[in-house]
């Protein structure tokens, strides 16, 4: 069977090495020279439960996993039953695997046989990954390989498109960590919270080599407060969290607003409200992030659509926080942050720290002097005669408290001026042409899924990817005028971007939502947009 895109899925209880075994398969595929995108589902517990790992791979770039699987492994006899909707008549379903100590390696062995793959490459990977347990893992691998010998080479996929040597596997959290480092980041504080914790792990692991101070403090309030202090002292800073932790940080966002201290907030969404679904995905924190922090002040909200994009936009976002001296929020979600794919090795990329212009010291130096852009040059502590007060109270041009009506207004106007500068500096929306008469507008992780749907044959639609969610680009309205119908697709219930678009005069004809903790799959997008669709797309009230 010759197919361009294949999907493998493994299901089993936590503790069976579902993700580690699955990731090893993906690593193998990457070494073969294939592109892949993976996705794992797991409940918020350490042992037991129903975990899955799936990876979609191809000789051309993949943007999301497919819903339909080609090879399915059930590591517990009855686990396959809840996945029947993902099967096609051609799906190879392994319900009863041969007995082995490491069933995840047996799956690997079967996969290598089915692809008629490189056994030596596979075994070298196992040796490298499990140096202390080489023999039992290799034995389990061999059991799988022999088991599938009859169906050997049933799938044929042509690899060697990418230069495997310069490729590495990163998930979104690691991409953030590397981006932060390459952007010149020097201080990161975070309290563990799924699905953002991976960024803390990656940065903590590399802190010494990268020269970054990484702190896990007592709570998210402290994490954010420390980062403001660090940024004031000259260290480009970031914090990472999910919705619940971000809620605790909102006072600090406001504080950054008035003191004009730039900090990057990496917000990785999961479904709420409250504790919600800790290990699942959602885009329901967009409006919360845009409107976080009391009072009127500028903030910037940017959303990556992929792991590579997370790396690029982290650099951009940290630099924006420094250029605009205001909080910048990089909003991602579980799907991007905890899914991996094959990417050019970030370690080989040159770092590009932001070159800040500091104030020239004169006798009458004013930290908060009025300026054309609203941004005024600061000094760093340690600079003689540059001392000033970063004041959470409304203040005058030097930072000292004031309640004088004229000064209060001119300081508010000064800060608001940054909006015009922000609009010039923020990333623009991207338009993907696909011979469309209609336009899909989306943001964040569904964008990859929509691109995958285009690759799978979805026609008649172009795609507008909104990268900067706040401030919204004025050009979106003009672009949307060229299309018959506007469809907004978001992984939330109420339609956050759909609501924001109304504020710039873009009213969608259809809003497609999904809010069960699961991501969109390309097959779903195609069926939702098919002319035969009954239109009963997860109907939701939304914001009206």
């Amino acid at each position, binding site marked *: 069977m010759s197919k361009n895109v294949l999907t493998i899925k493994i299901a089993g209880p936590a503790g069976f090495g579902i993700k580690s075994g699955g990731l090893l398969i993906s690593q193998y595929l990457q070494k073969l020279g294939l592109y892949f995108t993976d996705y794992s589902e797991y409940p918020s517990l350490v042992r037991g439960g129903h975990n899955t790992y799936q990876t979609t791979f191809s000789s051309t770039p993949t943007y999301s996993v497919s819903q339909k699987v080609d090879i399915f492994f059930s590591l517990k006899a009855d686990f396959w039953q809840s996945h029947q909707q993902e099967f096609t008549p051609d799906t190879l379903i392994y319900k009863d695997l041969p007995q082995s100590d490491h069933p995840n390696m047996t799956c690997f062995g079967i996969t290598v046989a089915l692809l008629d793959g490189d056994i030596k490459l596979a075994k070298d990977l196992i040796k490298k990954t499990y140096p202390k347990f080489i023999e039992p893992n290799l034995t389990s691998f061999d059991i799988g390989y022999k088991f599938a010998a009859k169906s050997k080479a049933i799938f044929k996929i042509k690899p060697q498109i990418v230069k495997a040597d310069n490729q590495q596997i990163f998930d979104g959290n690691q991409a953030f960590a590397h981006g932060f480092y390459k952007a010149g980041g*020097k*201080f990161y*504080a975070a309290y563990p919270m799924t699905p953002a914790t991976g960024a803390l792990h990656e940065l903590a692991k590399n802190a010494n080599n990268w020269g970054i*101070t990484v*702190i896990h*403090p*007592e*709570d998210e*309030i*402290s994490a954010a*407060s*420390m*980062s*403001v*202090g*660090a*940024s*004031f*002292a*000259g*260290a480009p*800073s970031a914090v990472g969290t999910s919705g619940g932790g971000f809620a605790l940080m909102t*006072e*600090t966002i406001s*504080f950054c607003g008035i*003191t004009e201290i730039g900090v990057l907030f990496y917000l990785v969404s999961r479904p709420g409200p409250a504790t919600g679904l800790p290990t699942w995905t959602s885009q329901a924190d967009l409006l919360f992030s845009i409107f976080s922090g009391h009072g009127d002040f500028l903030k910037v909200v940017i959303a990556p659509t992929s792991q590579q994009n997370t790396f690029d936009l982290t650099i951009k976002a940290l630099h924006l926080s420094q250029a605009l001296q205001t909080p910048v929020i990089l909003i991602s979600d579980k799907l991007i942050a905890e899914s991996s794919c094959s990417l050019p090795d970030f370690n080989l990329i040159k770092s590009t720290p932001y070159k800040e212009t500091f104030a020239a010291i004169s006798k009458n130096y004013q930290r908060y002097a009025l300026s054309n852009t609203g941004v005024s040059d600061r000094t*760093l*502590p*340690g*600079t*003689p*005669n*540059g*001392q*000033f*007060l*970063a*004041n*959470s*109270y409304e203040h005058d041009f030097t*930072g*000292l*408290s004031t309640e004088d009506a004229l000064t209060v207004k001119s300081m508010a106007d000064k800060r608001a001026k940054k909006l015009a500068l922000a609009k010039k500096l923020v990333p623009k929306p991207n338009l993907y042409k696909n011979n469309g008469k209609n336009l899909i507008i989306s943001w964040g992780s569904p964008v990859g899924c929509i691109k995958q749907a285009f690759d799978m044959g979805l026609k008649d639609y172009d795609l507008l990817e909104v990268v900067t969610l706040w401030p919204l680009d004025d050009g979106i309205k003009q672009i949307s005028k060229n299309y018959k119908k506007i469809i907004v697709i978001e992984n939330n219930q109420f339609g956050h971007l759909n609501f924001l678009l109304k504020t710039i005069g873009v009213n969608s004809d259809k809003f497609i939502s999904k809010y069960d903790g699961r991501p969109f799959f390309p097959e779903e997008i195609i069926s939702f947009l098919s002319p035969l669709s009954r239109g009963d797309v997860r109907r939701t009230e939304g914001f009206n």
Partner: protein
Amino acid sequence: MSEGQRGLTKMNKNKIVNYTTTIVPTWCPGCGNYLILANIINALKQHNYQKHNTVIVYDIGCIGNMADFIDTYGIHSLHGRCIPTAVGVKLANPNLDVLAIGGDGGVYGEGLNHLVASARSNYPIKVIVSNNFLYSLTTGQASPATPKGTITKSTPGGTIGEPVNPERLLKAVNPSVFVKSLKASDIPTLKTSLDTLFKTKGFGLLDIEFNCVSFGKSK
């Protein structure tokens, strides 16, 4: 500050450094905060703290308004957050001398979690608490340091909690930190304790007590 930088400072020792801004303090006549301000300035001079190399992070409350009166690098932070903000400054640039100044409400109430955590970690910052047993900027409600049974506007039936004892608390958390409670009126002890605090290498806290002249109840 490194020894080298200290050496540089010593050369200028005889030069009179003016640590005050042009703002006249706005505290009530007779407030203990004037004593604290004067003695902090003395300590800064005595220990040759350079204005440009010193960062003071202030909490919210009457004592926090000191932010406008001292001329060093400063952050007037949010209520309860002077300690983590100061820790961030110090971690980002260990060469800076970093002080956190707050009241009993900010340090023992809203920010107690941060106090305990930073003492555990022994972060090298100096914390000065102006403890008048009340929330005075908000016109006199009970604070975590208010003696048990005190009637205030927010506790008309008397406070029910035991007051925080910073010495016992911090010594239990980390015996190696410097912590001392004293009366603001005991000026000799105030001077020597500030001296000890400024010489402390790790985390140190000075709890300076006085009664609020406007809303305080005599004990």
